[in-house]
């Protein structure tokens, strides 16, 4: 459990609101102007503050690595990514403290204009599939079926790897495929150059 400012605001709003509401339910005051105002705070203002900051905190939580790893079929991904001895692409990137706590989201989010929404809608689909199909599957069964929906877009890698660093350009394949790589016609991982991102899923 980690409490950031938004979580604290959400909890404070909930406590303030609960105090007012419990007073109202227990004391049963007359509906005069004071009561109306108190209830405006207890049913309106404070809960809205709680919902706003709580939603934000919840949204942030959904980007968290542990959140992604909380369904059992994702635990091998999480374990490999956080394994300090793993040489998988996900593990290498997860070790970076800047985005490691949210490494799954960093690599798997859609970065278009409505990227966060699109990503979370996709996540809802995953939850739905989990509840309807994968909940009772063993890891071995799930492994055979879980695969990436669309080829992994190289644009996601290019958010950080610009394709213009000198050492990068020295690599023969990079130089030869520069146009295709920048146009997103050739990917970084699916083609077998980098990766596997998650060695576990590629082992027989």
């Amino acid at each position: 459990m980690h409490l950031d400012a938004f979580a604290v605001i959400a909890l404070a709003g909930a406590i303030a609101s609960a105090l007012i509401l419990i007073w109202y339910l227990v004391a049963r005051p007359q509906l005069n102007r004071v009561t109306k105002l108190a209830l405006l705070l207890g049913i309106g203002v404070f809960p809205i503050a709680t919902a706003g900051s709580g939603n934000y905190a919840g949204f942030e939580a959904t980007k968290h690595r542990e959140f992604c790893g909380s369904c059992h079929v994702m635990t091998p991904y999480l374990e490999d990514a956080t394994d300090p001895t793993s040489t998988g692409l996900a593990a290498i990137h997860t070790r970076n403290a800047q985005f490691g706590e949210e490494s799954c989201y960093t690599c798997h989010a859609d970065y278009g204009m409505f990227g966060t929404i699109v990503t979370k809608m996709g996540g809802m689909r995953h939850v739905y599939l989990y509840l309807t199909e994968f909940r009772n599957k063993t890891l071995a069964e799930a492994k055979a079926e879980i695969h990436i929906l669309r080829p992994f877009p190289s644009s996601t890698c290019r958010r950080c790897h610009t394709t213009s660093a000198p050492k990068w350009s020295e690599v023969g394949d990079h130089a030869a495929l520069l146009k295709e790589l920048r146009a997103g016609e050739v990917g970084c991982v699916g083609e077998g150059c980098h990766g596997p991102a998650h060695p576990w899923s590629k082992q027989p």
Partner: protein
Amino acid sequence: MNKWLRASAVLTLVALAMMVWSVLRPTPLPVMLAMSLGQAVGTAAFGIYGWVVLADLRRIRRDAKRAQELGLAEAAVEAPAAEAAVEAPAAEAAATKPPEPGS
């Protein structure tokens, strides 16, 4: 009326419980519950509050108007003043028995 407000208060507490749960344990079930059902219940509760209070304000205004028609034409009772009168301790009495003309 007060029954509805009590229901609204209880619904708000239910919605808040879901939100607090999601903040303290940010795992898929509580987070999704808070962001869907929690929002819906909380919004419904606030809707009930708004509806009850609006109805009550309308009643106050209607009572004031009736008081005016009952012989207070010159006194020109304004809505806010009438509301204050209604909400005085003798609220019910004031609503049915208008103040003396010219007072």
